[in-house]
């Protein structure tokens, strides 16, 4: 009984220690912006106003295609 408790307690302490150590370790300066981008990109909220609307992406792509077609025609 005590062995199980001891092992679990040891692993919990290990986790708390690594978590605290990780918190103390500063994030490299040039990586700070990436964290915001990833948080937003990984979010599943389709109604979020911050995110780029799918229709805008579609419009941009259609514009690009039109430009390419015009170039080819010329």
């Amino acid at each position, binding site marked *: 009984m005590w062995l199980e408790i001891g092992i679990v307690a040891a*692993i919990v302490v290990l986790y708390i220690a690594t978590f605290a*150590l*990780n918190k103390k370790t500063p994030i490299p300066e040039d*990586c700070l912006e990436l964290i915001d981008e990833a948080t937003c990109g990984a979010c*599943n909220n389709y109604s979020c106003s911050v995110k780029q609307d799918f229709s805008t992406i579609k419009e941009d*792509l259609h514009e690009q295609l039109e430009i390419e077609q015009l170039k080819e025609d010329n």
Partner: protein
Amino acid sequence: MSITVFFVAIISSMLINNVILLRFLGICPFLGVSKKTETAVGMSAAVMFVMVVASIVTYLLYYYVLEPNGITYISTIAFILIIASLVQLVEIFLKRVSKKLYKSLGIYLPLITTNCAILGVAEIIIANNYPSDYGVLQGLYVAATTAFGTALGFALVIFAFSSIRERLDSADVPEAWKGAPISLVIAGIMALAFLGLGGIV
């Protein structure tokens, strides 16, 4: 031990028993981080790294600490904590040693703590009981290969799915099917396709 064992371990864990489409583990990152190919590749690389290391550590913990003491019933809670600690350690290591690698993997590492595929693979490896066939040490090689194959399967599926989703952005999808519904339909079709690979090995 022949090389065929490793080859079979990789093929079966990558394609035949794919962790996402056939075992239904790791669905959160599969749907959440697959909008862009870039993020999918980053997540896959981080999962690959942590999955292999976590599988090795949990295997050693199980067969050298838990099993000899007859306390295998605490394996799940021990594995969860070990994986969480491991992710923290990997993050510290990347922050201090390789800023470049942290830039590409670091942001996905905290997400891996809650990725059930990592815990699932650790449990599957234990359930396969490799030491009974190969011995504890050689079983470790097979376990690490299985973890690597599983991670490859995860990467393959998430990359393919992200490529499809990127193309969907410019497709003319009916309003009611936009977003999650069409993604889930595609995931279902992909799962059916992978089901067809059963029986190869």
